[in-house]
């Protein structure tokens, strides 16, 4: 069980958060112009990395804000947390 440093609230127990999958997948601005394959790429394809992964998290039982996290899935080490819209820090 991690301790997550919510950028709005500070350190809280993982039980207050929910994970929202891979980060930095941007919803296409013009979906109608995409082929089925391109749309499927956005809709279904997700990486599942053993190692450093960019993830979305939500402080669901707290401030309810979304933010991004860089986490190593092999040892659960959290390398960085940054707000939505911010550039990922280099780790």
């Amino acid at each position, binding site marked *: *069980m991690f*301790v997550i440093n919510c950028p709005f609230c500070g350190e809280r127990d993982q039980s207050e958060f929910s994970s929202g999958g891979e980060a930095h997948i941007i*919803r*296409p601005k013009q979906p109608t112009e995409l082929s089925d394959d391109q749309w*499927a790429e956005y*809709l279904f394809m997700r990486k599942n990395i053993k190692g450093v992964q960019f993830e979305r998290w939500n402080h669901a039982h707290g401030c309810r804000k*979304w933010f991004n996290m860089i986490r190593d899935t092999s040892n*659960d080490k959290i390398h960085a947390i940054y707000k939505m819209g911010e550039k990922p820090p280099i780790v």
Partner: protein
Amino acid sequence: MSKELRVNSKYIDQTTRIPFKFNGKTFYGFKGDTLASALLSNNVHLVGRSFKYHRPRGIMTCGSEEPNAIVQVSNDPSLTEPNVRATEIELYEGLEANSQNCWPSVNFDIGGINNFLSPFLPAGFYYKTFMWPASFWEKYEFFIRHSAGLGKAPTKPDPNIYDHQYAHCDVLVIGGGISGVIAAKLSAEKKLNTILLDDKKDLGGVSIYNNDDNFKINDQNVSKWLSNEIENLKKYPNLSIKTRTSLAAFHGYNYLLARENLTDHLNVNDRKDKIRQRLWKIRAKKVVIATGAIERPLIFNNNDRPGILLSSSIKKYIDYYGVKCGTKISIFTSNDSAYETVLSLYKNGVKINSIIDIRDKSESLIVKKVQDIGIKIYWKHTVVNTKGYKRINSVELMKLNEKGTGVIGDKINESCDCLGISGGWTPMVHLFTQSGGKLEFNRIDNMFIPDENKSPSEQISVGSCNGDLELDDIIKKTNLKTKEFLDINTSIFDSLKIQNSKEKNKKNIWLLPSDKALGKTKPFLDFQNDSTAKDVKLALREGFKSIEHVKRYTTTGMGTDQGKLSNMHALGIIADTTGTNMGELGTTTFRPPFTPLTFGAIVGRNVGQFFDHTRYSAMHNWHETNGAKFENVGQWKRPWYYPKNKESMHEAVQRESKAARDSAGILDASTLGKIDIQGTDASEFLNRVYTNAWSKLQIGKCRYGLMLNEDGMVYDDGVTTRLGENHYIMTTTTGGAANVLNKLEDYLQTEWPELDVYLTTVTDHFSTISICGPNSKKIVNKMIPDLDLSDQNFPHMSFKNSSINGVRCRVMRISFTGEHSYEINIQSNYAKNVWEMSMEAGKEYNITPYGTETMHLLRAEKGFIITGQDTDGTLTPVDLQMDWIVSKKKYDFIGKRSLYRSDTIREDRKQLVGLITEDPNEVLEEGAQIVEDLNKKPIEMLGHVTSSYFSPNLNKSIALAVVVSGKNLRGKKLFVPMENKNINVTITDTVFYDKENKRLNA
């Protein structure tokens, strides 16, 4: 209690005799005994039968690693507990314990026949035999269930209280033996907020009863020195000591669970109203693991007889509990530590027959002392067999050959009533690996120890769990490591003078040879699961290579003790047989809990009414008073129907449905989700989340909306009302409210942060009273006379601000029944009052309260869907024949692009249709399958019934269903096959009642 088997012990209160029952017979022990020590003092060794062969088994250890002495505690159907280790039960008045896994009794066990059948019960026997023929499985299952199984579950609810508590600390020290005490003291001295846990009733571990003059700290006996240190610990206000507390799990980020036993040691009568167990949820900045080591058995033929114990356990029974495990004891060892046991026994006047040592010799001080006493030592010998069915009565030994791979010479017979075995030590690395740590193999001592370079969090392992087994090593290294870990310069333990008389000299043979072929012997590895060295070798021959596979195939290490005694030997035998290095082989995974946890401790207070939240509407009391039956909808209790005069559900629903269409019905719709949406981009936001267009909706108007997932599937629906230029109120389904809000927040925060929109849940703030039927207008008019209800001023799908008795309310003219109807939304604290006013105003029109069942029926008559009942996350609006609500003009909305993926445009998707039965009285079962051809095999299923009712307004059965290509099958006759008959049905339109929607304005 046998006087001959008791000696004095200062750790046991020998003035307080405690009666207890074992297998129905009354025995006596002393305060301070465990069930195991008390039984041994009564000369009871035989306590159970083994799992597979039903061999007699005795107490083997004195701790949590006990594989044999697992008992069922208490005969009370609500308190009885299986699989409790007799070595961990502190004796109390009222204790009733029974052997498990034997029938009819431990002394005469019918399953013991398996022992003689054992050549036919090799590894994987169950897998191989019971798999074929498949039709026999039920018979096999019966046999297995009756002959196997560990203990009985309670049959009544547990009346005990369990608790959960959080703790945060700088340093958590796990284990109160000598190294844990040293670490805790250093931490406390450094003013760190420290918690020290130990699973026993007192601190001190094995050193607390070490009064052997061969071991000294600062010229004091170890026991005396340690007692003083423990006494000293009590003066630190920043150190909290928790005994009877065992660490169950070590998770990432130093999050640990520990179970504290609070009443299990008390006399039964003293337990009332006390918390039985507390589960501690600990978040520690730093963790010191000091869990010690457990002694290994030796693996030789018939090493499982009652009377065979770990040598260190025999030592604890004599030194700590004051109990002799036998009167003629032999010792079988591979190392020096068994000689400590010999000296303790000798000091207490117990006869030691002989020592069998597989080593060539040992030059240590402690061995010399034993030799000086004159005890016979058989160097370089091994036990090749033991005898005695219910209790060991002799051992047979032979000389080992040069390599230790076979035996030579003559067989020697030694009689004994107890055999102490010592195969060296296994560090308790379980918690380290649970936390994600990796182990390294120490080839000299043949043990896995924590790899300090691969420590997953702020933690250290100290003492024998780190592989430091000798007193001087333990103290010096614990001191050094803790100092470094806690950033301490000088310590009070820096200059201790330590005397140790043992040497590390050890010989390691994982599987000891016998004069008989392996196939003719029974060298047990896992005592609880009855797997032998033979089984492991068989598994290897059959091609299993991975240790995880061998474990599952032979069940080695899969008992409630998780193979604490057996895993190392299994690994060793695999390594030897396959010629692999043990370090490369790795270990099996140690999973939490370290020792079994009760369900009570896991759930804590979250039982009964505290298991989950229950949500009640503001009118709940009224519903209750008026006889409503309730239905769970998510966490909500919703009125299901209101039976009158002992009506059945069917009768009540028929009456309610008819009343709602004939005159007036009233529904508590408060549980629908309500989201307040404000901001200059609110209209644009709705455009993006709903399939239809919202920009042109006038203020004061309502609109039905369908929300999709990005994959094009229907997610939720509801009516949204425009309250002002930049202000809407959205309603969602009852069950979907929280998810819809989360989804909308997700899009707002992550995809469209540029939109000026704010979402607030107001589900609980407003209550909703829905009044429908041809007389609804008259009723609302009576309640709010100054509100102009004319169709011109207040048409269908519009909204008015109003007030009732001075309380502001929102009135919407929307309908889920197809009838002329109004929804009154009012602040929840006035809602019950307004509900009662509505009942009063509607009295002359026979206003009838109806529940969710009638609501479902009425909407089904109109063909309105319920998301989650008629949809299941695989249906698009087109599948639902709701193309009309999907905007063709809007450039984008959530899910739009998915509506013309190659899969979603298929014509042969399942589509929503109506169904009528040939026999109008036949009501279909929801979920029933629909087929066209009854003779085709395998039968092709075209779809299923999603909603089905008997409509009192149409006087016939109606149903909604999803059917492949259903859109084009109107009029088609199909079948719904049931267990005893096939029901003839016809596909129809989804709207059964008032197809022209005339009643909306009636």
